[in-house]
């Protein structure tokens, strides 16, 4: 219920800022150059200077969109690290950030006074700041609901820029699966010990992209990792499926790892929490030794490289 309200609230904020943006573009006049400094601080308001006119295809930005987390240190290790890798790879592009969770944006703003854009605010600012070429790179794991919602927010802007391109989420092409598995395996020594069962906990979604999880599990096994299992908190493969897989594998020890960009609340509570319904507690009740690895996907160098590669693919793709 609370969550629904917050979503509504978030939607209202987004709708509100869209309206503002819409109105703003009608006014025109002052020279854009003198407004640039102000623009970058004031967002939609500054847009009144009529930035649209100045859109310059050679002024390029890479816009990284993440769900977000309110934990500062965790954020820097995960989302921040992905952003840094992208920034280093493409020095010709100015980097922008947005979070899709308005709850997290509001919390960080209230607590730390740090203002993080939502998608619409960031798009408005890119427009106001005169960017002509924008590459949007989500840090989403798959082409799911979050990704669709992001595109719904960015697509109205597509004809306002000389070029908008999208980098793909982590698990998109068939090759991505293999690359992800190699990236994870390279940094997860526990996988090599076959007396361990290694369980990756994904979020899970009602979106049809939920099949991604089972596909990843399948691919792990196809690549010889028969001790690796992929499950989700909210969808299928569910925890019962994981338990039956573990029983069949006859594991002594289970290593739990989040399959999420950030090791945040789900990893802390649903996976590694001390309450009776966490995966850790439930597996211990069954007699497994349990090790929790509190490491988000953003912390694996190989995963960060993939986001850089997806970004690069978008940059070099032929314009439609």
């Amino acid at each position, binding site marked *: 219920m609370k969550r629904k309200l917050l979503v509504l609230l978030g939607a209202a904020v987004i709708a509100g800022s869209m309206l503002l943006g819409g109105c703003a573009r009608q006014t025109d006049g002052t020279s854009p150059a003198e407004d640039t400094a102000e623009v970058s601080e004031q967002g939609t308001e500054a847009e009144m200077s009529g930035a649209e006119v100045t859109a310059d295809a050679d002024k390029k930005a890479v816009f990284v969109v993440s769900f977000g987390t309110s934990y500062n*240190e965790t954020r820097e290790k995960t989302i921040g690290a992905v952003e840094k890798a992208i920034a280093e790879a493409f020095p010709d592009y100015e980097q922008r950030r947005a979070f899709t969770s308005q709850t997290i944006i509001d919390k960080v703003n209230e607590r730390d006074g740090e203002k993080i854009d939502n998608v619409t605010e960031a798009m408005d600012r890119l427009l106001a700041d005169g960017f002509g070429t924008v590459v949007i790179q989500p840090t989403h794991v798959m082409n799911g609901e979050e990704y669709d919602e992001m595109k719904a927010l960015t697509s109205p802007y597509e004809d306002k820029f000389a070029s908008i391109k999208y980098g793909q989420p982590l698990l998109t092409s068939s090759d991505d699966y293999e690359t992800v598995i190699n990236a994870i395996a390279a940094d997860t020594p526990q996988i090599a010990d076959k007396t361990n069962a290694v369980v990756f906990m994904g979020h899970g979604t009602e979106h049809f992209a939920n099949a991604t999880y089972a596909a990843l599990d399948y691919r792990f096994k196809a690549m010889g990792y028969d001790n690796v299992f992929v499950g989700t908190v909210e969808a299928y493969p569910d925890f019962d499926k994981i338990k039956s897989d573990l029983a069949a594998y006859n594991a002594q020890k289970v290593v739990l790892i989040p399959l999420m960009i950030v090791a945040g609340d789900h990893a802390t509570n649903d996976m590694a929490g001390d*309450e009776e319904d966490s995966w850790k507690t439930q597996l211990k009740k069954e007699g497994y030794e349990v090790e929790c690895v509190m490491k988000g996907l953003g912390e694996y160098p190989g995963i960060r490289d993939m986001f850089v590669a997806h970004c690069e693919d978008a940059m070099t793709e032929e314009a439609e």
Partner: protein
Amino acid sequence: MKHILKTFFISLLCLLLCACNSAGTDSGADNSANSDKAKGEISFTDDDGIEISLDKPAERIISLYSAHTENLYYLGAGDRLIGAYKTSTFPPEAAFLERYDYNGDPETLIAAAPDLVIIRPFVRDKAPDYVRAIENAGITVVSLYPDRFEEFDDYIKKLASLTGTEDRAEELLADFHGEIDRISGLTSSIEPKQSIFFESTDTNVRTVTADSMAGLAIDLAGGINIAGDAQPVSEGSSIAPFGEEKVLINADNIDVYVSQRGSMNSGASKQGISERAGFESVKAIKNDRFYTINEKLISSPSFRYVKGVRELARYLYPEELDDISAYENDSAATKRSFADIVFLKKHLPVFVPSSSSYYENEYSGHTYGLFEDIPWTDRDFDSIETCVSDGYIEGRKDGDKEYFDPDAPVTRDMLAQTVFVMGDFTSTSDSADIADISESEHPRIVKTLVQNGVFELVDGKFEPKRQVTNNEIIKALEFVK
């Protein structure tokens, strides 16, 4: 001294107020309506300054404040509640009352035909039209809120008079103060004293004022309040600015760090605290003495406040407060004694659901407060709910009902599972040969614990179904780090 003066002043104020209010009635200084009982009349001035007069106790009550709801249940008037505000989730049955919201349409409340609506001044301030609409419909609205701990008894007596539960109120208040006195008596003699920092909001690391309920709880629990001289953000507020910097200045002195969490304030979690720059140097964080406490236990004027005081005292002086000597015997253990021993021996913080929407979700495991055989009034409610919610002891489901079976025996098999879940045990390579392992429900756990020396075999047998004694539980728990 400050408190005594304050108490005196407030009592004086009460006396004066009561003297004024009771013009025309024969009630004395104690305006709890006790003395009016014979006349069958209920009259007092509520906290919005409105004269209240009822001919008889209310029968159909809607409570628009969670503390009123809790207290009415304690008073035994829960069956007269026909509705409550959405944050009313204690006792657990209150969560299933019809919901009324002062941000909504007053007509839905009026249509329920209550004969009494209990609010607090905050509600009238926030939703004056809503309250007025109810009053215009001819429904009695009473506004109550004790601003200070010293006003708690008077507040409870008013609630009691509205519901004709004065005798029960006397008993409860006597027990309430008796337990608080016992705790403060116990902690006042402990030396050296432990210091505590109480964080009331994550934003700007605010604390509470010394005279707030939480501030008072620190005194009662025998703690030295690091922020004892913090001044309120605004006059009359219980929230006081403090800030990260001052916390860090006191880093070496903070023995215990408590973060308050609640529905309006998500509060700092253990992870949130550990990610603040420099906080790893805070003594309490280094020594793993960080706790979160639900605001309903510590900042709300309800009978549950005694639990909040006890929790703070347990965080400060765990060994002194959590006394298991009553269980150091060879009596056969029941699940009830098992839960108590685990709770006390391992100093488990009391589990309370943190979200007011807790009951809107379904849980695959246990749902807090819903054991058919452990009502919220059970003396061991907290230890049992905590052990089950932490996953240390299991209940039983029968259809959609849950049972704890407090009198059931504790077997070696059950004890093994608890010890394994609580601890961090690794299987060693020398596999133990256990003759009757097939009789165990947790063969993997039993093997590991036998290898680790937690259990001894008798003639090569584990005897999983044998009932353990209280002393055996205590001994096994020694192996949990």
